[in-house]
């Protein structure tokens, strides 16, 4: 129990301290040290099978164990990448390469402090077992990450940060209303919004209030998760943020909002309403996949392409959870795979952006020639994110397809495959054109910090495609069990 508090409080304290540390070396050291110890603590807390007692405000079940380790792993990767990133970023005023206006980065301490606070709030969002506390944490993640999106302090990042802050705050205010309604479902007994109390009383919850609450929370957290048609802020924020931040936003933060939806679905399932929430999730999932596929097809900016790909994958996650049964297992496995692959892709995109100084897909050629390692990672990442074998995403996407077919939902299956193909076709054209050919930029040696994290993540994505470690499978099955409505 104390370990869980440490997991939340250590990055929070380090984040606040970072704002006041003047000396860059010390601050960077603190950043790496906290990220590393957070990862170690998360694994130590997640591994034991029994977990912690679940009737407190914070606690850890299999679902939060998966998401916590995943978040922590991604943050560690982003930290290694980020230390090199901030060190290479010039501190002086410079010209924007797109519109030519002058801009200057935020101080490095704001970047480090914001990142660590983001880690703290994400950990709280994952570990909290009180719905309102989780709301506070998820809203706090928005506030911690908005200054990170505005790191470059130019016009486009300003617009992105503004949209992000406004749309997510409004969305999440609706989720708060949903939580009020959940409180109204408990007609008798203590009005206690801990998950334990809600699951215990699940049989007596008022279904009408619960369905209203589910809709509000789906819309609220769905905005933050990037489900279409509420995703409009996402491509802006994820493309304008510095690359290590984009990786965290896409790979870790979207999962936290997803977890918010999962918790309500868990309550619905326990109350015998799994199919009500499920159908809505399938609808939003397919809509997100389709819309993202269309926008990937005609995309002129490769970071936006990755952002739309995140919308697509959030759709897949929602779809898998909506199906229930095997789909739950597939969905959680896919969350793991997607986070690792997407972080790796954003790191690589950051390398390309730093070398070519443009985000336009039309102006880049010969990445493999100019940046051999990043070029190879870019192609590997494309194959992985579109679910090609032998990567882990293939396994999870196939599992979800099997879940759809098992239930005999032929139309859903058709649309699912169609949208996946659409994304594949759209991305293949863009990525291959960028990767191949000869570039005007000459070949350079890539810094170690810029390639270490993406290479490790690429290997992980590959390994998960051929071998699933036993403890992970156990956790995934356990987590899927939580949402099948069997009272625990």
């Amino acid at each position, binding site marked *: 129990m104390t370990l869980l508090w440490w997991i939340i409080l250590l990055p929070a304290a380090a984040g606040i301290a970072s704002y006041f540390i003047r000396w860059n070396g010390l601050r960077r050291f603190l950043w790496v040290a906290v990220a590393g110890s957070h990862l170690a603590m998360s694994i130590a807390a997640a591994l034991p099978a029994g977990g912690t007692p679940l009737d407190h405000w914070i606690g850890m079940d299999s679902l939060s164990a998966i998401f916590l380790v995943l978040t922590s792993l991604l943050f560690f990767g982003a930290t290694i990448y980020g230390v090199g990133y901030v060190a290479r970023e010039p501190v002086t005023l410079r*010209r924007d*390469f*797109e*519109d*030519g*206006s002058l801009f200057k980065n935020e101080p490095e301490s704001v970047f480090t402090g914001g990142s660590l606070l983001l880690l703290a709030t994400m950990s709280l969002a994952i570990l909290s077992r*009180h719905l*309102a*506390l989780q*709301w*506070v944490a998820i*809203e*706090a993640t*928005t*506030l911690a990450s*908005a*200054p990170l999106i*505005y790191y470059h*302090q*130019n*016009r*486009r990042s*300003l*617009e*992105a*940060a*503004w*949209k992000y*802050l*406004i749309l997510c*705050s*409004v969305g999440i*205010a609706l989720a*708060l*209303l949903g939580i*009020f309604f959940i*409180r*109204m479902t408990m*007609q008798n007994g203590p*009005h206690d*919004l801990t998950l334990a109390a809600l699951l215990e009383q699940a049989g007596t919850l008022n279904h*009408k209030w619960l369905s209203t609450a589910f809709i509000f929370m789906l819309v609220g957290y769905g905005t933050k998760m990037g489900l279409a048609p509420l995703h409009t802020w996402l*491509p*802006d924020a994820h*493309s*304008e943020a510095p690359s290590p931040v984009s990786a965290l936003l896409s790979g870790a933060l979207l999962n936290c909002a997803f977890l918010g939806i999962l918790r309500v679905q868990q309550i619905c399932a326990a109350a015998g309403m799994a199919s009500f929430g499920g159908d809505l999730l399938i609808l939003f999932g397919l809509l997100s996949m389709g819309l993202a596929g269309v*926008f990937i097809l005609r*995309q*002129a*900016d490769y970071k*936006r392409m990755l952002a739309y790909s995140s919308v697509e994958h959030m759709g897949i996650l929602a779809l898998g959870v909506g199906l229930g049964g095997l789909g739950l297992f597939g969905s959680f496995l896919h969350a793991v795979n997607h986070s690792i692959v997407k972080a790796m892709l954003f790191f690589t995109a950051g390398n390309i952006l730093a070398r070519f*100084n*443009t*985000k*336009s897909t*039309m*102006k880049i050629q010969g990445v493999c020639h100019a940046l051999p390692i990043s070029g190879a990672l870019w192609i590997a990442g494309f194959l992985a994110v579109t679910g090609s074998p032998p990567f882990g995403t293939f396994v999870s996407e196939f599992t979800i397809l099997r879940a759809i077919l098992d239930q005999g939902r032929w139309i859903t299956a058709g649309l699912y495959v169609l949208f996946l193909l659409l994304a594949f076709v759209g991305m293949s054209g863009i990525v291959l054109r960028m990767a191949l050919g000869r570039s005007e930029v000459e070949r350079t040696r890539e810094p170690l910090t810029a390639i270490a994290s993406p290479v490790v993540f690429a290997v992980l994505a590959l390994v998960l495609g051929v071998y699933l470690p036993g403890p992970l499978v156990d956790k995934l099955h356990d987590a899927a069990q939580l949402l099948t409505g069997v009272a625990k």
Partner: protein
Amino acid sequence: MTIISVLLILSCLLLLGSSRLHVAIRVVAAQGLLLGGLPIIRSAGDIHYGIWILGLSTILSKGILLPWLMTVCVRLSGIRREIEPFIGFGASLLCGTALLGLAVWITARLQLPGEAPLILTTSSFFAMFVGLFLMVTRRQAISQSLAYLVMENGVYGIGVSMSLDFPFLVELGILLDVFVGVFLMGNLLFHIDREFEHLDTNKLTELSDLSEPATLRAEEHP
């Protein structure tokens, strides 16, 4: 209670019809004061120290600090009035009455438990709708942050009217989130004013996939 509810409704109507930002800020500040007093009045009998702290911090943050921040924003940017919004002020008022009808209808359908003061629920729902409406139709970035506050006030009012007793720390957390959120918005407002030399969010359109991403295609390679 009834007086506060009626004042809440009137203040929202005033927001819909007024174009002056100073007026809008004062109205939102007044709402913050009203809502801060609400839980104190609501629990008239047994006053708990937590309720006092919450009420007073609501008054301090929503009624004094945030409006003051907005006033500074207005003064620095030199903008006094809302630009003609997408839906005019008269038409906005008309929409407002429709929203009020919607709020009444929803409250009636909700089947709230007997002790909930219906008029407060209605007026809070109304405030939430007005907040959303202003968010969509107003163009000034300042108006949008004010709209967010109005909406948040509405949600807060609904919570009070349903007599939701969240744990004290959670309540404080919610208030802190709202405060920091609007504070960050205010911070970004300074930058928007400096970068774009206006606060018209309608012109924040460099990032879009629906219009041609001109900056990407037209710009020369540096």
